[in-house]
C-alpha cells in the first residue's frame, strides 16, 4: 500500500514495530499518526477513525499491554512497541471470548466502534477478571457507540468474563 502523508521535504524516521506478532520496519514521516500507519501502511483497516480529536475511541489498540487511542500517538513514538490490533484478537481460527461476547450478546450494530470497544474491554478484563457493571462502564467511558445505547456492550463484556474464567458464558 502507498504510504500515507508523503511530503518530500521531511526526513522520514525509521521505526520497527511488532503488530499482532509480526515485525515491520518502515520509514515514516515524523507527523504520521500511528492510526494512519496501521491503516494505510500496514493495511490493517480494522482500526477505525471516527473523530480526529481523540474523543471516540474507535482507533483504540493495545500498545505494550495498554489500551491506547492510536490517533493520539505518532507512529515514530511507537518505535520498538508491541501492538495488538483487532486483527490479532482471534487465535488459531477461534474467536477470542470478547469477540464471541460481542457477537453473542448483540454488542454491536454498525460495528464501527466494535474493534476499539473490544480492545478496551481486553484491558478491563485484565485488570478486573470478574468486572462489575460499574467497572465495565468506567473502563469504556472513552469509547463512543452511537448505535447500541451500550447495554448490550456491557453484556458482551460480562459474557467474555464468564468465558475467560472457564465458566459457562450463557
Amino acid at each position, binding site marked *: *500500500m*502507498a504510504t*500515507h*502523508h*508523503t*511530503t518530500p521535504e521531511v526526513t522520514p524516521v525509521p521505526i520497527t514495530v511488532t503488530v499482532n506478532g509480526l515485525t515491520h520496519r518502515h520509514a515514516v514521516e515524523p507527523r504520521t499518526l500511528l492510526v494512519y500507519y496501521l*491503516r494505510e501502511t500496514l*493495511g*490493517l*483497516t*480494522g*482500526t*477505525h*477513525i*471516527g*473523530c*480526529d*480529536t481523540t*474523543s*471516540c475511541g*474507535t482507533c483504540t489498540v493495545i500498545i505494550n499491554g495498554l489500551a491506547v487511542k492510536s490517533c493520539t500517538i505518532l507512529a515514530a513514538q511507537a518505535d520498538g512497541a508491541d501492538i495488538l*490490533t*483487532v*486483527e490479532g*484478537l*482471534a487465535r488459531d481460527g477461534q*474467536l477470542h471470548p470478547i*469477540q464471541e461476547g*460481542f*457477537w*453473542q450478546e*448483540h454488542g*454491536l*450494530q*454498525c*460495528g*464501527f*466502534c*466494535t*474493534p476499539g470497544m*473490544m480492545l478496551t474491554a481486553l484491558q478491563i478484563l485484565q485488570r478486573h477478571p470478574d468486572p462489575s457493571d*460499574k467497572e465495565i*462502564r*468506567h473502563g*469504556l*467511558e*472513552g*469509547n*463512543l*457507540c*452511537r*448505535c*447500541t*445505547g*451500550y*447495554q*448490550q*456492550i*456491557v*453484556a458482551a463484556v460480562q459474557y467474555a468474563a464468564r468465558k475467560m474464567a472457564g465458566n459457562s458464558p450463557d
Partner: protein
Amino acid sequence: MSVRTVRKTRGVVGESVRRVDGVPKVKGQFLFGSDLWAEGMLWGHTVRSPHPSARIRSIDISKALARPGVAAVLVAQDVPGKKTYGLEFADQPVLAWDRVRYAGEPVTILAAVDPETARRAASLINVDYEILPAVTDMEQALRPDAPKVHDFGNILRHIRIEHGRSAKADVWVEGYYETGMQDQAPLGPESGMAIPAEDGGVDLYVATQWLHVDREQIAPCLNLPLEKVRLHLAGVGGAFGAREDVSMQIHACMLALRTGRPVKMSYTREESFYGHVHRHPAHVWMRHGARRDGTLVYVYARLVLDGGAYASSSAAVIHNAATFAAGPYEVPNALIEATCVYTNNPPCGAMRSFGAVQAAIGYEAQMDKLAKALGMPPIQLRLKNVVSPGSVLPTGQVIRGSAPVRELIRRCAAIPLPPEEPAERRDPLSLPGGAGNVSRGERLKRGVGFAVGYKNIAYSGGFDDSAEARVRLFRGPGGAIAEVHSAAAEVGQGIHTVLVQIARTELGIEHVVLHPPDTNVGSAGSTSASRQTMMSGGAVQLACQAVKKDLFARVRRWAQAEGRTVPEPLTVEGGMVLAAGEPLAPIEEFLETPIEQTRVYHHRPTTPIDEKGQGEPHVSFGFAAERAVVEVDEELGLVRVVQIAAAQDVGRALNPQGVYGQIEGGTAQGLGFALMEEIQLKDGLIKNASFTDYLIPTILDMPPVVSELIEEPEPGVPFGAKGVGEMSTIVSTPAIVAALRSATGRELNRIPVRPDDLIGLSPPVTSPGPPPSPEVPGPEPIPKYVGLAAGQAILGGTE
C-alpha cells in the same frame, strides 16, 4: 435490562438470531466505506464555502492544479450533466456556481495522490466571494422583507390541518417550545470509492441508506444512463438519516471519470458536520383544551421548522411534524399549521423519527401541563385520551391496525422504579457530573417523567413505496441453499439478519446466504422510516413463496412421472419437502436446476392530504412509551439519568435481541437530544463541528434501559411485524425533560436542556406569538409549484 434470550446462529423468524455480519465485524474484516482501497487510487477532497450567503465572483484553481500530485481540480462548469440534485427536488448544486447558500456548501473538488497533498492543494484554491445578507433565523425567513434564499422565496412547504371546529373547554393550557439542531453523528464518516469502468460508466462503492435513489441523482449529473452507474453498498458505520442524501457520491464519480482512476473520498469528523443534513430546529406553539374530567377537546399547534438552504427531505419532515402534532390522542377538534422554511443555515433533512420528535416534545409537555391544571396524574390523563383501533386522527385517517397504547402505558408504568440511593457514602462517580467529581451530592433532586409517542411506518402521503428482492434456491454441497439478493442497506439495525431469518422460515432450510446489496437488483427503497422489515422483508417473503410454488410444481410433475400421488398440502421443513405433513424427499432432490424468482412488495396505498389536511396519509403506526428517572444537582445543573423504563409496540419481534438493541440505541439518541446534543450555530456558522464540542452520550451517561415488548401483530403486513427503529427516540427526550421539570419545578421549554437552564441562570425561552401563516397555493411543497419536481427548470437550467 433486556431479557436474556436463547440465541441462535441460524434461527427463524421470532428467534434471537446472531447477526449475519457479526463475525467479520468482530474480526475487523468488515470493510466500511472508509476502509476501501484500490491499486492506483486517488483521494478526493472538497473545498466548501466559508460564508452562509455569498455570490461567487471568481474561482482560481491554477495554483492547486499546478501542485505536484494533483490529478484534477473541478468546478461547476465541469459537471457533465445536470448541475443540481436533491432527494425530492433537484435544488442543490453539485458544485456551487454564482451563489452559495450555506457555510459548508461544496464549491470545488480535487483529486490527489494522498490526503495530505489534497488538503494542501485545496488551500491554494482562491474563491472570490461577494458576501450577501443571510437569513439565519427561521421566523425572520417568514417576514416579507427577509433576504430570499431561493428566487421563489423562503417557504418550502406549509401544511394546514383542520379537524372538527372550535370547541369550548373547561381548562386550557398553552406552551411555547424550541428545539435545537441535532446531528446524527454516525461514527463512520461519509465515505466511498468510485472506480471508472471500461464502458465509460462508473462503479461506486458507498456507505448509503438507499442505493437506487443515489443512482437516480448521480446519473443525470454525470450525463450517463442509469445502467452505466452501478452502486454497491460499502460497510455503513451508522446512518440515522444522515446518509439519505447524497454527500460525496457525485463528486467521487466526477473525479474518477475525469482522471480515469479510482477515487476515494472519506470525510473527516469536522467535514461530516458540514457534509450531511441535520435534525430540523423547531419553534412550537401549542394550546390544549380539555373538559373537567380530562377529556381532550381541542388542540391548536403551530410549528415552524428550519429547513436550511436546500430542500432535502424537508417536505416529508414537515408532513410528519404536522400529522403527528396532536400526539397519539383522540381529539375531536384540532387546528394544526406547520411551515418549513428555507434559511442560510446548513440543510436539514432526515434524522431518526423526523418531525415526530419535535412534535412530541411539544405535545407531551402540554399533556403534563394539562394534567397539572386538572389535578390529575399524568399517566391517568394519557390513559383517558390515547388512541386505539378505530380512533380518528386529525387528518381524518382512521387507525385500522394494532394500537395497543393503553397496554404500553400500563406495562411501562408497572416496571419497578429504581431504589433511591442516599447521596452520602455513594461512589462520587455515580453522582450527576460523574467523573468530573465536582459534587458530594448535597442538593440532589430526583424526578420522574413519562412520555408516549408515535409515528408512521414506511413512506406516506401517496408515495408509491416498494421494495424488490430476488431469491435463488439451488443445490449446494450440504443440501439446498437459498441466496437472497436485496438492495436494502444494512446500516447496523440488523435488516440483513432479518431477511435471512425470513428466507429460512419460508423455505424450511437453514443455509441462506446474502448477495451483496447493489443496483443489479431493483430498488429496496430507503433504510429509513422504520420501513425495511415490512418492505424488504415483505419482498423476500413474496419471492420465497414464488420459489416454493415452483418447487411444489416440480414435485407434482415428478410424482406424475413416477405414477405416484403425493398427498397435499405440500410444505417445506427441515430441508425436506413434506406431503400432508410426512417427509417426502430432501428439497435438493428437486433442484437439478436452480429456481429463481424476483418479487416487488408494495404496502397498501396512502393518499396525499388535501387543502384542509384531510386524507389517509400513513400506512401503519408504531407507538412507544418511556418513563425516565433523573437526578439533578440543583446547584450545579448537572444531571444523571438513573433509569429508563421502555415499552414498545412492535407488532411481532422478528429478532427480539435486535429489537431490544434498537430500543436501547434509539433511547440513547433521545437522551443525547434532551441533555447535550446541539449544533451551535452563529450567523449560519457551525461553532462545534467536532466530538470534543458536540457531545454524544457516553456509556456513563446511559442508564439501564428496562424494556418491554408489546406484541400485537399488525394485520396485513408480513409476520405482523412493525418497524421498530425510531419510536424510542420520539419518547425518550420528552420523558427525560418531564423528569427534569418534576425534579426542578422549572419550565425547561428549550431542548436540549442545559445546566444554566436547570439552575435558573437562563430564563425559559419566550415568544410574542406564532408568526402568521404564509399565503401559499396549497399543501404541496413550494418547489413543486415552481417546477423543480420536473428537474431543474428554474434553478438547475442555467449555469
